[in-house]
């Protein structure tokens, strides 16, 4: 591209309402163009919430659950269907929407949240072991490996009703024993991404020097350690080096004024309630994407387990909510509270999509090259056996995902979820694909094809299990 072309493009981009935000990815793009390496970037956002994605909350109103029972995979166009309350905010994006039912949990135990199993599709044990055992790569990390970025994987979390939690490991990992921590406080995530709020000096540059100094310090101990102890130390050295490189890049962006322009405005005082914290974390994720700081984001609104309270909606414990206990203050039962929670998260997800739609990119918008994976870390209910794991996919990643449809893999049974309520859950056929197949579909969509994603044994060679899912991949 000639210099004139780049200037023209810059002028055109800056003339839009989102000019300042578009500036940062544009800088990245210009450098890539000059290097001859430019490709339209793809982005994937994983939204994980707790307590299950009830069938009632994800099936269009005109298609009650029993009607979907069948022994064949069926697709329904969404065009004339009405989205249910929980995901109604996605209505403007119905043509970019795919709802999926009938995937199985496979070897994952998702009841009470699947922990590291939710995004890895691996058996990481039961009970609390699920948030301790890190046995392999998670799908967001696998996608991040392909898509790269200054922050290859931005991992944000919300500890419901617990504003003191700074970070926790819950969902994502580069591999066995290599978990990533989810940043649980918006103001701290902000600081990592954009620098101190209102900062006038380049903290990133000074931090880089500090990191290098500290790294030199600790490296001296290498010669005195052996085996596992040396591996432990090297893990830290690697972290120092990775942070140093990242801070060097951020320092450059800070000097160019990009970070200050694109940083979101955080509410003051900093959010405390669950709902406000969710909103702030989505705002941060959105800004990080449009600034070009990251291409892959995971937001775990309940940290892949059951804990805390949905403050801002209900002060009851999330566990009791999932058990359909009654909130005395609100006068409604838990299963009526959960749709409010899911809807709030859906609204923030829709806002993210709306923002991306405003961002011009290569003749279209950023939304055209984005995929949001919206699901629960607890499959379809709190005490689930993983009999059906509903997903909503938003966006088509540059036309790689078939959207505008509800896909239902063979569903054999419809049972009451809790006695005395109308909530019902469905059960996928025993030979249906598992969530691993969907994850491999996403890998194919971003151009990181694999034979399978974290399957074991014969499933690794069974096309029905490995994916990609032909109903979803173009």
């Amino acid at each position: 591209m000639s210099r004139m072309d780049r200037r023209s493009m810059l002028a055109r981009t800056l003339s839009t309402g989102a000019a300042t935000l578009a500036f940062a990815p544009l800088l990245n793009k210009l450098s890539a163009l000059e290097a001859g390496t430019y490709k339209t970037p793809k982005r994937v956002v994983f939204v994980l919430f707790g307590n299950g994605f009830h069938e009632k909350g994800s099936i269009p109103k005109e298609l009650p659950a029993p009607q979907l029972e069948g022994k064949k995979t069926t697709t329904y166009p969404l065009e004339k269907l009405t989205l249910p309350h929980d995901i109604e905010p996605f209505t403007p994006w119905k043509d970019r929407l795919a709802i999926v039912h009938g995937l199985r949990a496979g070897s994952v135990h998702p009841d009470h949240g699947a922990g590291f199993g939710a995004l890895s599709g691996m058996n990481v044990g039961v009970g609390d072991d699920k948030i301790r055992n890190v046995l392999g790569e998670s799908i967001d990390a696998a996608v991040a490996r392909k898509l790269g970025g200054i922050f290859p994987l931005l991992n944000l979390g919300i500890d419901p009703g617990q504003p003191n939690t700074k970070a926790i490991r819950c969902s994502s990992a580069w591999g066995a024993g290599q978990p990533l921590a989810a940043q649980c406080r918006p103001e701290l995530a902000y600081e990592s991404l954009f620098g101190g709020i209102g900062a006038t000096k380049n903290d990133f540059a000074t931090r880089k020097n500090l990191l290098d100094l500290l790294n030199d310090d600790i490296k001296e101990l290498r010669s005195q350690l052996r085996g596992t102890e040396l591996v432990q130390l090297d893990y830290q050295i690697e972290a120092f080096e990775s942070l140093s490189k990242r801070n060097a890049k951020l320092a450059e962006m800070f000097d160019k004024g990009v970070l200050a322009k694109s940083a979101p405005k955080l509410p003051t005082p900093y959010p405390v309630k669950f709902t406000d914290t969710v909103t702030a974390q989505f705002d941060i994720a959105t800004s990080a994407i449009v600034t070009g700081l990251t291409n892959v984001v995971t937001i775990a609104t309940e940290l892949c387990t059951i804990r805390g309270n949905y403050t801002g909606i209900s002060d009851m414990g999330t566990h009791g909510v999932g058990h359909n206990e009654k909130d005395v203050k609100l006068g409604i039962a838990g299963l009526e509270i959960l749709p409010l929670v899911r809807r709030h998260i859906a609204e923030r997800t829709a806002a993210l999509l709306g923002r991306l739609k405003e961002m011009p990119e290569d003749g279209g918008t950023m939304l055209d090259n984005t995929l949001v994976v919206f699901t629960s870390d607890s499959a379809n209910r709190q005490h689930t056996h993983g009999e059906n794991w509903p997903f909503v996919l938003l966006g088509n990643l540059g036309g790689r995902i078939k959207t505008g449809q509800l896909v239902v893999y063979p569903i054999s049974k419809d049972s009451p979820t809790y006695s005395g309520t109308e909530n019902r859950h469905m059960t996928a056929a025993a030979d249906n694909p598992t969530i691993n197949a969907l994850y491999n579909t996403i890998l194919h969509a971003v151009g990181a094809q694999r034979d399978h994603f974290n399957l074991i044994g014969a499933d690794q060679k069974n096309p029905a299990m490995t994916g990609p899912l032909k109903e979803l991949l173009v």
Partner: protein
Amino acid sequence: MRFTWTVLIMLSVGLPIRAAEPPNLAQIGVPFVAKYCVSCHGEKKPKADISLHTLTCDLSKPKELQVWQAVLAQIDSRDMPPKASKQPTDNERTQLLQSLTAAIKASGVVLDDNKWLSPVKGNYVDHQLLFSGVPAKEITGTKARLWRITGPAYEDYIDKLIKRFILGLRNYGEFRLTAPWNFTPQKDFPDYASAHRVGEAEIEYLLRNAAIVSQAMIKRHSGNVPSYGGYIKELATLIKAGMKATPEQADAVLTPTFRELFGREPSDREKERYGTFLRNTTASLGGAEAAEQLLIALLCQTEMIYRIEVPNKLGTPQKLDARSLSRSLAFALTDQLPDQLLQEAVAQGKFGTREEVAIQVRRILDDAKVEKPRVLRFFREYFGYDSAPNVFKDEVTLQKIGVRGARGWNADFYVSDADQLVLSVLAQDRDVLRELLTTTKTFAMTNPPQDRRGTKSDEYRLKKPNFEQDEQTLIKVYELPIKARADWDPKKTYDFPEGHRLGLLTHPAWLVAQSGNFDNHAIHRGRWIRERLLGGRIPELPITVNAMLPDEPHHTLRDRIKVTREEYCWTCHKQMDPLGLPFEQFDHFGQFRKEEMVVDREATADKKNLNKNGLPRQTIHKLVPLDTTGEVSGSIDPKLDGPVKDPFELIRRLAHSEHVEQVFVRHAFRYFLGRNETMADGPTLIAAHQAYRKNGGSMKALITALLTSDALLYRTNQ
């Protein structure tokens, strides 16, 4: 059990079982199975209904993968072949494990290479050999390591720094500068040297904490000289010089700042490295900024993260230098830096020999004014009762015991009462383990930690005439004769009703911690006893097993747990279930009971109980007879084996066992040394056990023996 050098050597160096090129499973596995397994697991009447004669080593077949994983677990745990059968040689066993591990991994199953380093694997070192009295041939010590300091230790350091320099930081509640490494909940003994990694998240939070403290330090040193509190005048000079600061002023800062922060002089290397950094930063950013950056660097350097336990040179095991040793000792007991007296002993050269270390250990243990949170934490982590508040009990479940609403249940009380019980037994320091296992006393409603309970002190609660709902529940659960506030004293112990309780394993804190949301957890309870008291080994749950009991609330737990009697499951479950089922004496809230409540299906489904939609209005329960029998089997000490009629008979038998005492000593070793024991630690364990016994079951004597052993004093990087 026969002594097997190969496996023991592997365990002694803490390495996973692996080889550069593992032998092929097809060549190793099938002959091994044919030679040692198919006589029982063959074509005709295979035991546990498992046939191995048709195995082909094709792990892409789900069934084959499942069976080979079971084989791995059994051979790995040495539970198979049975003791009475022909045994493979060490080489055969090792080769099978290597080839099988590689083949299973290749099939996509992740096996944790570091599992041997976790506390739960400590029991895999042969108990009888450990206590056989074979003298150590040479000093082995502990491998050179960086042992990350605990969260409380880090937080204590920062808090004291803030107070010493009167930095005016609100270090509480949401503003508290918490340790930057509590991002993963841990179980067993979480403070294991091998268990942690310091990654990007930890470093980022460490830097943030350091920046907050450093900025406050700069502020304090920027104004007039304060009349009280900590102050580093050289730092103030540098800060005030601003952009005119000279290299000499920068150089002057280093030594006094090291003294103030770490109580020591900087080493030559530190002088060079940090000196250069400080001079360069001063030249480019000025004195104030340079001072801030130096402080951040020092508050993030290695000593802030780790107990550095490395020998001074390569080669044979060497005694830790006095300063490192003093830090390791202080952190082991107090979660704090060495106190004044310990620092003085180091400075005077009186801390290095075993006896000198023992003097300091005894002093710390005997001095009531020195806080020793690590000792209580050992008992919390060993018994695991402190996790009771994490077990959620929903309102419907609470209603079944007559508790209305979640406010009627506060598990923190029970944990706090158990803590006080442990502390009171430790204060006596006589037959500590036996007393904890057999006491019939409890504290009642002692004040839980304030961060959970708010600020309701004992004084505040004593003034309230009526008991709160959660207090009423506790009185009911404990069955105490407390009718009114005037009857209650939080500092007093109460007797449980005779024959209803016996020690911590029947205390509601432990019972609730070892329960589920809706039921007792007999398997967990049995596993705890098998591993923590009997020193047994439970193989890992095969990945292909869906470990769930049937959802049949109309049956007792004892009935539902019968699914584990299938031979495939029973090999492992026979080690757990019969030990846990006697505790059916209590419900899952820890209440003593004589009958068990189950769902009455017929009454619930009766027309009278259905609403207009045909759904039950309520779940109706009925009482059924209680069975509290169980059995001890497969113990290393055969005197322990045999049926028991209830939990009390089981506990008494265990509490009077020398073998159980030895297993307890092994766990104390793991906790205080931060690693699993190896064969080389046998003499240390024997000495620690003897010290405990000779001193009448003294925990102080046990801890002193452990913290003056070679395992603490010596390090090797061979």
